[in-house]
């Protein structure tokens, strides 16, 4: 254990200062300072996001894209400004390619439903063995509706994609690859640029599930060259209920509407309805206006951070946490890919993840216990569930130390 080097506090990343931006972190749970290590489930929100949403409801609340009164104009302006913030943040060519949805799950369902309408029986969709249920089930529903075939790219014991198997999965009928950018259960960062390049050689578009990638790195959809990119606001230090589907304009243009209703039409008569242009065609009904504004503000917060410092700091947290945890008798880390975000999934002999979750909670440590909505991953590793400590840039080395101590305590108590 002495061999483990504790990362020094870093001049480039003042974590104490950053923590002050997140009011929720300053509290005690069961008599201990809260150590929030469940960021892969949802992240905490900076004060500026909370204030922006509060201000919207106090001053500006009105429906968007209708009404000429002052509040409607303010709400519309702020809502569309949030869309522009998203576009800028992920470097999309056009705001027409930014569709607001409820979250990553709805974004993928939108593609499966709308893009999926163009697929025929026998067409093929490739997913991977490390997907969240949100990137499995929509394709199974599409399979039931249209008879498409699902092909699954396997993973290696380290928890990486088995890229050597990918060329063999392509056929003349392959219509889409849908895969996660970062695994929520394992932390693996997938070589998505390489996958996109291989797919494009076959003329196949690629959807990336970016829910777990966005909070840990800067994503540039043009650099990735992906065709769809989906993510959630609440995992990006923004509110729940809002998410984004980026779609390449040429693809979105060709796709039929996802849901029908207000907001997504140009004219309606009982004989014929013409649909609005992008992106509103995919945004039926009143959107989550406050959510979009909150997400926009979260992005403004993130844009001010030094991302090379964020990534270096998180990498040190990951290495430190991995070393400390692997040093604990009976503990096995699940997912040891070379490229990982700051997330450690693990199991411990004789201590079930649910008991672990309760014991850690008693010491103020919030971790996730369960199958992480990735049951095929659990099956692959032959475990019913894991415990998962997932970190963000506001977590500290001291929190990792407390986690390690609590894990040893759990083993003493239950084994």
């Amino acid at each position, binding site marked *: 254990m002495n061999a483990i080097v504790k990362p020094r506090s870093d001049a480039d990343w003042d974590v104490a200062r950053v923590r002050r931006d997140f009011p929720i972190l300053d509290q005690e749970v069961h008599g201990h300072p809260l150590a929030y290590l469940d960021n892969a489930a949802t992240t905490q929100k900076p004060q500026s996001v909370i204030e922006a949403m509060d201000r919207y409801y106090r001053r500006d609340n009105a429906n968007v894209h209708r009404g000429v009164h002052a509040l409607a104009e303010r709400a519309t302006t702020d809502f569309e400004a949030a869309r522009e913030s998203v576009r800028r943040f992920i470097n999309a060519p056009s705001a027409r390619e930014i569709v607001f949805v409820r979250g990553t799950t709805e974004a993928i369902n939108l593609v499966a439903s709308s893009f999926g309408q163009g697929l025929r029986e026998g067409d093929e969709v490739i997913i991977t063995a490390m997907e969240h249920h949100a990137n499995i089930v929509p394709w199974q529903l599409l399979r039931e509706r249209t008879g498409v075939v699902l092909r699954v790219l396997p993973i290696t014991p380290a928890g990486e994609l088995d890229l050597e198997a990918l060329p063999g999965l392509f056929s003349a009928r392959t219509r889409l690859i849908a895969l996660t950018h970062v695994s929520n259960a394992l932390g693996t960062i997938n070589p998505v640029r390489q996958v996109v390049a291989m797919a494009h050689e076959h003329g196949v578009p690629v959807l990336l599930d970016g829910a777990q990638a966005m909070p840990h790195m800067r994503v540039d959809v043009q650099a990735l060259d992906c065709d769809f990119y989906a993510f959630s606001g609440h995992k990006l230090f923004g509110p729940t209920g809002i998410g984004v589907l980026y779609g390449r304009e040429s693809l979105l243009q060709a796709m039929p509407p996802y849901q029908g209703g207000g907001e997504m039409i140009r004219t309606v008569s009982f004989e014929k309805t013409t649909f609005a242009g992008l992106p509103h065609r995919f945004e039926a009904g009143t959107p989550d206006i406050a959510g979009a504004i909150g997400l926009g503000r979260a992005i403004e917060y993130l844009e001010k951070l030094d991302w090379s410092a964020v990534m270096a700091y998180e990498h040190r947290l990951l290495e430190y946490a991995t070393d400390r945890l692997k040093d604990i008798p009976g503990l096995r880390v699940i997912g040891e890919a070379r490229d990982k975000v700051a997330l450690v999934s693990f199991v411990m002999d004789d201590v079930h*993840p*649910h008991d672990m979750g309760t014991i850690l909670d*008693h010491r103020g440590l919030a971790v996730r216990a369960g199958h992480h909505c990735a049951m095929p991953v659990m099956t692959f590793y032959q475990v*019913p569930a894991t415990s998962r400590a997932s970190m963000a840039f506001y977590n500290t080395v001291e929190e990792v130390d407390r986690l390690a101590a609590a894990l040893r305590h759990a083993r003493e108590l239950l084994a």
Partner: protein
Amino acid sequence: MSELNDLYQELILDHKRHPRNFRDMPDATRAVDGHNPLCGDQLRLFVKVVGGRVEDVSFIGVGCAISMASASMLTETVKGRTVDEAQRLFADVHDLLTNDHPHTDPAELGNLGALAGVHEYPMRVKCATLSWHTLDTALTSDEDSVTTE
């Protein structure tokens, strides 16, 4: 919240480490699968009911300390009881774990009273009741599986 030791009492830990009647039962009259999809706990409960009496009861499965200990204690308590008595026990345990003001006195439930601490942990109640719901299904219906959802 109460002390962790109220949840993980020595009796519960003992049943977790050494589950009783943890075995298959080839001549069972009923075998029912219990599943908690939220946490992945999975068990199969076997009962052998002869003449309205639970002659034998056993289980196999995987789960957390609370679900395993609860199932183990269930088998010890229910074995030899009439079906009516077993159902009353189910009702009492359910009452003890889920009601804020249970009418059941933990002291009257013997070893099962050790489960009373689970009430303070709402997220864990389903762990403790899984085997009991499975027993109830085995004794009162034709279903072959039950989930806590």
